[in-house]
């Protein structure tokens, strides 16, 4: 029946439109962002900004006989505009490197110069050193690698503390009955919702007293406060999902509580424990404000990225740093995605 067919096509078109809109709303900003991270300073000042990073420039190198100097022209929207005029190969090299992200040996420049003298005008394709921004971020920006290591350490400690303390709490909540169980539940809920900002300041004092100020370990202590509670919540619901009879069978056949936990419970709960660790990792990796308060000379990567923004009006280097910050985060978020049903499916506050 034609009416049904028309209705169906309209439905499908609307569907596709909505899907495409959603996809574009995400992809377009991200594309620009990635593109900026690869952009040289020159490109960063161009308007309109590029959505796809370019790999090279179309250029002309022109000899000006009257002044005995050379002009470098870069193609923009079909027109070649002059960007630098000089006679010194060294200053050309510096310009190419800093402004255009093009790494060209001085000797090569001198060759170009002699070639330009003879043919007046040379057409060039200047290849970009694509990852230069990333290199700058790591090498030139102060202590980025150290910050990366700090972030990893803080994350590792957070995972360890959260799993150990939160995991045991979750296990007792799931498997045992004891007085104050409800109180514990409620307290964990309160701590989970608590703004970490409020305790960071006083924490600084304790941390200083403990002599661990400005270390990744101290950050982990603060990150663990809400994370232990979150891990306890996640693990208790996972353990509840594991049939008690599996553990009881193990104990009937001779294993003690601890061995049972090791050999039966943990392997079964493993995927969810992985997911909780990932949440702990992300909490430590992504944070800027606690790091802001609790560190001085040893920042985390997220804090360094935050600080590189400064007041400059272009963001190509910060964007490169942000993308480095982003990658583990992206990987782990996609791993977590598969466990979401397990974690959130039967959720009740």
């Amino acid at each position, binding site marked *: 029946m034609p009416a049904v067919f028309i209705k169906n096509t309209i439905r499908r078109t609307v569907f596709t439109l909505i*899907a495409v809109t959603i996809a574009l709303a995400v992809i377009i900003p991200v594309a620009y962002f990635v593109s900026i991270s690869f952009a040289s300073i020159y490109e960063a000042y161009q308007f309109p900004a590029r959505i796809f990073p370019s790999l090279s420039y179309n250029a002309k190198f022109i000899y000006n006989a009257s002044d005995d100097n050379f002009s470098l022209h870069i193609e923009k929207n079909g027109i070649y505009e002059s960007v630098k005029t000089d006679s010194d190969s060294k200053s050309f090299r510096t310009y190419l490197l800093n402004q255009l992200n093009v790494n060209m040996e001085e000797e090569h420049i001198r060759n170009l110069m002699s070639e330009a003298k003879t043919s007046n005008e040379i057409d060039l394709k200047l290849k970009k050193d694509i990852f230069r921004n990333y290199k700058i971020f790591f090498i030139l920006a102060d202590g980025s690698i150290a910050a990366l290591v700090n972030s990893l350490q803080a994350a590792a400690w957070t995972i360890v503390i959260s799993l150990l303390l939160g995991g045991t709490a979750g296990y007792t909540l799931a498997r045992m009955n004891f007085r104050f169980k409800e109180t514990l539940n409620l307290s964990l809920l309160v701590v989970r919702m608590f703004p970490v900002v409020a305790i960071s300041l006083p*924490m600084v*004092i304790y941390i200083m007293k403990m002599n661990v100020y400005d270390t990744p370990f101290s950050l982990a202590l603060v990150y663990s406060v809400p994370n232990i509670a979150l891990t306890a919540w996640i693990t208790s619901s996972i353990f509840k999902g594991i049939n008690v009879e599996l553990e009881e069978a193990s104990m009937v056949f001779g294993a003690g509580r601890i061995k049972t936990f090791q050999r039966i419970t943990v392997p079964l709960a493993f995927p969810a424990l992985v997911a909780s660790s990932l949440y702990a990792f992300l909490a430590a990796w992504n944070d800027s404000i606690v790091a802001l308060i609790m560190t001085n000379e040893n920042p985390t990567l997220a804090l360094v990225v935050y600080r590189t923004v400064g007041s400059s009006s272009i963001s190509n280097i910060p964007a490169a740093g942000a993308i480095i910050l*982003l990658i583990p985060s992206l990987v782990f978020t996609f791993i977590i995605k598969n466990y979401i049903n397990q974690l*959130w499916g039967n959720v*009740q506050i």
Partner: protein
Amino acid sequence: MLNRKNLNMENRSAYFLLFPVIIFYAVFWLRPVYSAVLEAFADASGGFSIANYSRLLMQSDIRNAFINTLVFTAGSMVIQFFLSIGIALFLNKKFKFSNILLFITLIPMAFPPAAVGILWKSGFYRLGWMNSLLFKLHLVDASNLIDWMSFKGLNAVFFLTLVDTWTVLPSIVIIILAGLQNLNKEFEEAGWVFGAKRFQTIKDIVLPIIRPTIVTAMILRLISAIQVWLIAVMIYGYNTVPFLVERIAYNIDVITFAEFAKKDAYALSVIVVVIVMTAAYFYIRISNRSKNQEVR
């Protein structure tokens, strides 16, 4: 249950296992909270006073921070409520590219706040990508580019709401989607068979049943929204658009050694805690009005 030890033993082993957790929280939560509260209510000499608060409330920055935080929280929750439910329902229909689309929709969620700040700051520049995009679509021309950064007050708050929505929507969608996927399909089918149109079924049957899931997601958003600061600072810098936690960060990071910086930071922290906990409490109370509907 085999060989159940008597109750005392059970209690004891539980306490034994929980001992480290309790100690940890006593040291790293109870004590800091206690001292923060003490500091917030102490004047320079150490005696009890609410001078910190009266001083705070006299600053217009702080008053604006309250207003901005309120508007931001309310606005973002409303927008995100409708959008997240809509997108979750959309993604729940198993159509051809729904998996790929879910994948794409999750990307903003993976962005650390610092990265988000840079992404949007680079867009908000006068020559940034937002204007570039509008230019390419011929919605603006070179002479009347929008000056995003010049927005002040509530206009800026509005744009920050949009930026925030872009970032956090996936995390809400994913929770609601999990709730939808755990819903027994037959509830919806019964609706269709007995006469309800598609949209009616969603309104009358699906959404009410997954209400606990929606409430959970919204509470998490509420708590985060009240503590917004990083995107505001990264895009507009300090002071331009004050928020509560932004003021705290300002006191700690920028004017660290100013006379009342620490006190203000403590006092504000306590305020933020009280607001978050109160809001969460009331939200849960209101949403659990009909708790007798056991849904399984």
